[in-house]
């Protein structure tokens, strides 16, 4: 029974990791770190997000998700728009 439970948990972890992805959003208007803290706060409040990084130099927001179902492009665009920015491109890496 323990072995079965262990196998199930491992299966869940592996499948979840397999579906995790990194999303890169190019953003216009990203010049001030003080103003951009809203991006970090907004995305970290999303259950599907495991990590978020903001790079002012590259004008890039990198979002690591926990699963594929997490964030579609429309949601990412809305969250970044609500934070005050304009999305110009979204790419995904598994």
């Amino acid at each position, binding site marked *: 029974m323990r072995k079965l439970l262990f196998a199930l948990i491992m299966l869940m972890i592996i499948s979840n990791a397999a579906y995790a992805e990194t999303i890169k959003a190019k*953003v*216009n*208007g990203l*010049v*001030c*770190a*003080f*103003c*951009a*803290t*809203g*991006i970090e*706060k*907004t995305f970290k*409040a999303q259950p599907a997000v495991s990590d978020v*990084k*903001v*790079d*002012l*130099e590259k*004008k890039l927001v990198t979002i690591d998700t926990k699963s594929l179902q997490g964030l579609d492009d429309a949601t990412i665009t809305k969250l970044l*728009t*609500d*934070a*005050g*920015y*304009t999305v110009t491109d979204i790419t995904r890496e598994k």
Partner: protein
Amino acid sequence: MKKAIMAAALFAFAQTAEAKPISYVGGVMAMQENDETGHTLSLDYTFDPHYAVGLYAKEEENGKHYTTIGPQLNTLIQRWNLPDGQANIFNSTGAGVSRFHGENNAAAWTSMLADYETRRIFTSYEARFTYADHIENAFWQRARVGFAPYAANYDDVATWFMVQVDDHPTKNDTWVVTPLVRFFYKTTLVEAGYSSNHHLMANWVLQF
């Protein structure tokens, strides 16, 4: 006429204010300014990408000494998100009570703020009209220009050197120039300066 020309020059020279009155949806911003015009405290909650509601309070000094408090609405009228910069036009309008010599009087205020910034250059201009019944009706304008000695990234402490010019005809010192330094890191911003009429400036902004 001279004042009008100077005001026009000021507007053309730079657009301002301490911090944008709208943050991100769900964000709360607390701001305090202590300068030669008095002490200002505001608390704003952004409920829409274009709107924030808040509470504004100011103790006026360097002229008539009175206190104003009331709710205000901040509106993002226009934003330009550019590849290497951002420009904004905001309005803040509120109404409340001004207390002067122990008496409460109706008060209202509105201000227009325009700013443009890159990672190395900052300019802003703010014009404010204040009505305080039986106390004073004031027009006030402020311009600010600044530069960053290095382009700070998101996880760095940002440093800015700025010059602020105030024109407030109802104060004892009408034109005031304040060189200042600004630092911010993540959700905390602080500013310190010393004005041409010998007052210390100490401002801070916190985001939650």
